[in-house]
């Protein structure tokens, strides 16, 4: 396959189709709409169902129903729409079904705006819906990575009967970059042993998230947790830049990660021993890799387009052994590389105390430059 110039949203849609997507259900919302639009054209061409539902609530429940049949199914939306889907997502998790959801995140809370944001980290990573469950969360930083991770999302979802989220943001969705799409996969022929497709000639199967007896629900919760621990052991993914001799370690994912990459590269040219760890799975989180880096680290610097949500995961991995500093822009504002470069220089030059809440200093510095 040759490299083509592809728009993030359209590339993610086509990648899903080529990964063998069998049905799509969604509802339009900026900055994700081109994804649904692409599906509306391509899925009928291929004789596969595309359905624009009456709302996100309906769309995710259609995904729930279709997933019960063992088909490859997905939806996509952006932050406010994803909030509406939370009940359905919890039901999908509780029924132990594979399903993929792409969230092209935007500024919030509330209606917010349509600019790129990472404010949904906690919602996507920590659950969002009710009850004890975990979802795999993949965070692309380029169009090519968005394609690759959408394909991976389906494989992981089915391997672990798990919800898998791809969290992009408005930048990834709207940008065009050269990228290579995978070849078209044939549709899956096998039916999973749990799927319901009509029970003629065999024993009845029931798929449900209702377990009236707490002891039965407890068994389900244990199974979900054990499956999650297997995912944690096997599916952590990240990318590293200049880490070999780095003493300052920047951590950022998605768009914030690639903006940080620009800053880290410039800082390296200035002779600062800094490197970047860019989580690709933000759930499971690369805590083990971070722990390995502690001995060489003078300090960590977490960069987000949110208020220090991933920061908590980094702090947990670092266990207070070296300082963890923070820089974030909020509400749909994307940082420029020079802002992060200034932070790298600050961390390189100023002594950073252990045990100080990094949010205190960051808020002061942020308020000095905001409206």
């Amino acid at each position, binding site marked *: 396959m040759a*490299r083509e*110039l592809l728009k993030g949203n359209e590339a993610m849609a086509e990648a899903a189709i080529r990964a063998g997507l069998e049905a799509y259900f969604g509802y339009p919302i*900026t*900055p994700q709409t081109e994804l649904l639009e692409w599906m509306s054209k391509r899925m009928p061409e291929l004789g596969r169902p595309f359905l624009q539902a009456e709302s996100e609530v309906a769309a995710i429940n259609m995904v729930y129903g279709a997933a019960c049949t063992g088909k490859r199914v997905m939806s996509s939306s952006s932050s406010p729409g994803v909030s509406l889907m939370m009940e359905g997502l919890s039901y999908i998790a509780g029924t132990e079904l594979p399903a993929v959801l792409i969230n092209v995140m935007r500024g919030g809370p509330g209606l917010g705006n*349509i*600019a790129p944001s990472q404010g949904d980290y906690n919602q996507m990573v920590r659950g969002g819906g009710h009850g004890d469950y975990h979802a795999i969360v993949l965070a692309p930083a380029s169009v090519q990575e968005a394609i690759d991770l959408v394909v991976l999302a389906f494989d992981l979802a089915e391997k672990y009967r798990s919800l898998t989220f791809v969290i992009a943001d*408005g*930048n990834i969705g*709207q*940008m*065009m*970059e*050269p990228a290579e799409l995978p070849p078209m996969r044939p549709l899956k022929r096998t039916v999973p042993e749990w799927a319901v497709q009509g029970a003629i000639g065999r024993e009845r199967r029931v798929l449900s998230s209702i377990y009236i007896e707490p002891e039965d629900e407890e068994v389900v919760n244990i199974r979900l947790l054990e499956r999650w621990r297997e995912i944690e052991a096997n599916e952590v993914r990240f990318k590293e830049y200049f880490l070999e001799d780095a003493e300052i370690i920047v951590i950022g994912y998605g*768009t914030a990660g*690639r*903006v*940080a*990459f*620009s*800053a880290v*590269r410039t800082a390296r040219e200035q002779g600062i021993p800094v490197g970047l760890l860019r989580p690709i799975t933000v759930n499971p989180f690369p805590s083990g890799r971070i722990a390995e880096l502690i001995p060489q680290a003078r300090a960590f610097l977490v960069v987000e387009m949110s208020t220090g949500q991933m920061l908590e995961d980094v702090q947990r991995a670092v266990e207070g052994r070296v300082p963890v500093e923070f820089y974030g822009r909020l509400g749909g504002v*994307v940082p*420029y*590389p*020079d802002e992060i470069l200034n932070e790298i220089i600050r961390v390189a030059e100023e002594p950073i105390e252990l045990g100080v809440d990094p949010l205190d200093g960051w808020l002061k510095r942020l308020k000095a430059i905001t409206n």
Partner: protein
Amino acid sequence: MQTEIIISGFGGQGVLFAGQLLAYAAMDAGKDVTWIPSYGPEMRGGTASCTVIISDEEIGSPNVRNPKAVLVLNLPSLDKYEVLVAHGGVLIANASLINRAIERKDINSLMIPANEIAESLGNRRLLNMVMLGAMLEMLPVLSLEQIEQALDDHIPERHRKLLDLNISAIRHGAEFARKEGVEITEVVE
């Protein structure tokens, strides 16, 4: 090193396509490239802009504060971007719609009557190609031949009949810049 180019004007002036053409040509030349539009909740006649980053290595931030080159097709865009062009960078302004001079002296700049040149070719919608041609003369990040080949390879089928006119517009833009005796800003690889 990378070259960042912002193209900004009214919606409908072809700023997004001009940027995409650059991106296609850069891709075909084997470079890394990122094209990103401004995508606010715009209304018809509102502003539109895009950023194109062309590089020989992995591209980090898709947004740049101080671009190497800016093409402004209307006055609001000049007011916004004149101050942001990188020191020693390139600023090209559409003189047909802009009634003031460029004030910065530390950059390589050109006022070009892009609408008039486009109209002289028979189609005023070619102004984006005129501007692009002038830029390639002043900042040869890609050759005219590479751009023309990209146009041939990627022009939407419904516009193919306009291919020769588009190429002519690019050449007229470059020629105008040449006749004005513009400096050539080196592209750092």
